[in-house]
């Protein structure tokens, strides 16, 4: 029994590898987007049979495509940095610069739906449970636990909302031009933003400052308050904080306001007279509003507003100036979807649907027979599939590949 399960897994792996290989020998040439200055980049790959290889470099796009064709990796990465000697070991590479990169992943954002679709499995005793992964298996005490994260549309929407916040801050607060910014769908649960131009020379300390700024780490509300009063124009960050305070006050319940630590008298006046107070804030501006609210309360509101309007980036990615990031146009080994270009503007992101656009196999109509252990309902383009629970099904390639890559199904046909 155990042996035949092993064979099913092997067949499934071979099937997936075969599809990836087909992708890299034909379709990939239209989708792969090689990084600028390709010859200065380090590449790394996860190969189906050999695991991770890195410190590889290519002279040109053709060299890269050739390699992909010959090796059809399950995942492809390149360094956001460009080097003198990209294929040397880490110490001898000679760092020249690196794009500033941001990673927004549903993993880092709290969504209520995760409890419904994320599971973990103990690899020793196969015990599994919903929700966040514990340190040890409560059943057998083993510590080799595997996450089975699903990605659903609600998670993707949450990641997209977060990405929109990021784009807004980058352009209105940091002054990043659209030409220097590209948004990508990661191929799984989030988005990558690559920023090029002068930022490429930033050292790690400066990148940390940018990450902390976005996450709200190290913010001091009393300093911020002074600075807001001093800021001439109501644009940029000041506007963001004002909007956040406005949002907080217009939707918060008395309990929420109490949790922020506001004085009872202020909470009462907000509850009784919300519209008038908010109206005054809009008309009289921040300075007058601050005077009326009082210093203690305004500091608490600012602290909350900074937190509320912060962006949940994965700071490790932004800080690491040697980071390998997924190659645009390559397939994600856990989904069979592509990392694909969204565009440079908020509008392009607003209209973007990864489940219709990161699907290179959408035109493959032949069905694949597979056995699905368990999968929630999901969508590819306009078609819904599932939920499946221990059943044999026949699906078009793209949704079938998703289930196989996710490890919740095996080939049965």
């Amino acid at each position, binding site marked *: 029994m155990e042996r035949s399960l092993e064979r099913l897994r092997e067949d499934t792996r071979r099937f997936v590898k075969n599809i990836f290989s087909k992708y890299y020998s034909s379709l990939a040439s239209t989708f792969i987007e090689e990084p600028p200055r390709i010859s200065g980049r380090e590449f790394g790959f996860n190969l189906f049979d050999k695991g991770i290889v890195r410190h590889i470099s290519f002279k040109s796009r053709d060299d890269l495509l050739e390699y992909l064709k010959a090796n059809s990796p399950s995942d492809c990465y390149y360094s956001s940095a460009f080097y003198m000697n990209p294929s040397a070991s880490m110490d001898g590479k000679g760092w020249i610069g690196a794009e500033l990169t941001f990673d927004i992943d549903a993993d880092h954002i709290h969504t209520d739906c995760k409890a419904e679709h994320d599971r973990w499995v103990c690899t020793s005793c196969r015990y599994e449970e919903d929700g966040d992964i514990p340190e040890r298996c409560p059943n057998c005490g083993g510590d080799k636990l595997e996450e089975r994260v699903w990605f659903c549309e609600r998670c993707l929407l949450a990641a997209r909302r977060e990405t929109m916040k990021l784009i807004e801050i980058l352009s209105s607060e940091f002054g990043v031009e659209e030409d220097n910014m590209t948004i990508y769908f990661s191929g799984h649960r989030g988005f990558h933003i690559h920023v090029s131009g002068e930022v490429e020379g930033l050292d790690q300390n400066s990148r940390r400052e940018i990450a902390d700024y976005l996450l709200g780490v190290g913010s001091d509300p009393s*300093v911020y308050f002074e600075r807001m009063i001093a800021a001439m124009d109501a644009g940029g960050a000041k506007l963001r904080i004002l909007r956040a305070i406005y949002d907080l006050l217009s939707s918060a319940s008395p309990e929420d306001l109490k949790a922020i630590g506001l004085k009872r008298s202020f909470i009462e006046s907000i509850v009784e007279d919300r519209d008038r107070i908010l109206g005054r804030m809009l008309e009289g501006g921040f300075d007058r509003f601050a005077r009326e609210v009082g210093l203690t309360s305004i500091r608490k509101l600012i602290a909350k507003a900074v937190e509320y309007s912060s962006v949940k980036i994965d700071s490790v990615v932004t800080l690491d100036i040697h980071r390998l990031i997924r190659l645009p146009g390559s397939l994600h080994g856990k989904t069979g979807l592509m990392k694909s270009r969204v565009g440079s503007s908020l509008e392009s992101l607003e209209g973007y649907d990864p489940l219709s656009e990161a699907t290179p196999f959408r035109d493959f109509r032949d069905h694949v027979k597979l056995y699905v252990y368990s999968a929630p309902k999901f969508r590819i383009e306009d078609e819904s599939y599932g939920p499946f629970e221990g059943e044999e099904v026949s699906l078009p390639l793209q949704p079938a590949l998703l289930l196989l890559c996710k490890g919740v199904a095996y080939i049965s046909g």
Partner: protein
Amino acid sequence: MALKESYRFTERDLAKYPFLREASEYLEEVGFTVKDIEAEYFRPIIDRAYSRIVEAMEKGVVSLGLGEPRLEIASFPVAVLLVRFVRDEFLVRRYALAESLRARELLEGEPKSLVGALASRLGFRAEIGNGYAKLYVLDYLKYASRFHDPRWKLVNRVLDRGWVTLSRRELVRLISEAIQDSLTKILSRPLPGDAKPPSTFEAKIIAITSMLSDRKVKYGGWTDVGFVEDALPPCVKAMYTALRGGKHLPHVARFTLASFLLNIGLTVDDVVKLFISTPDSDERITRYQVEHIAGMRGSMTKYTPPSCSTLKTHGLCIEDELCREVKHPLIRYRRGMRRVIGGGGEGGEKLREA
């Protein structure tokens, strides 16, 4: 938006800021040449150059000396040459800092046209108003990201379309940082291999070198003080306790703990022993990693633990009252040691005895 460089520097300006390109042009015009360095008339210039360096070492700042502008201007390149002959990293840092502090003190009283001219000379894109200034965010980050006071953190600045608003004083602070950088670069530039110091330099070089060695004895290294659990910073203590309790630590925490312990003088064997007491560890891999951190492999650099701000970013910072204004866990350990040992003493010497 940078100011156009229409400002003309006067002789007095050049005496204040002798590192400007215009200062060397001026010296050329008045017929000053280093070829004369052994001539009698050069003696006061060399004396002032020497006093610039001694003031830097003793007081940490060079005096203003604006009484004789020409002497002040000419003595600066000579001082630079002296420092380059001595070739000492500590002196380079100390002197660059002291000259930049001198410039900073002077700049605080200057009109905005001069501040603007200097700022743009140093590559700042700035717009200077009366009490405040606006600086392009990347220029701000280049220098402000080194400071640890929360007031300098970008998160506490109100950014608007790439511009950071700051006070004139704060801008001057950043300008002096840029001056320090560019001086450090000039002072560390090696002289040609066959360059011999002029005879008039010899006594000065000996004097400076001996002052330097006195200083080093006084402020010697303070690490390698040994392991005292009660003195550990709370973040490291938590990692240490977790590891001993058999808990799994994230990578950054493992790195922090290992590099911290190696820096306070534990041996690779001690650290490996601690790490392999956890159930899932492999001694060979652990040893390899610890040796790498200790600088025995790979890049051969000994790693220091991450700073407090890095730990904060990774969510590993735990603060207590001894952490106040501390930027680095090793500094916090020194404070902790002082408390454990019994509060005495100022710096490292006491600790070394302990």
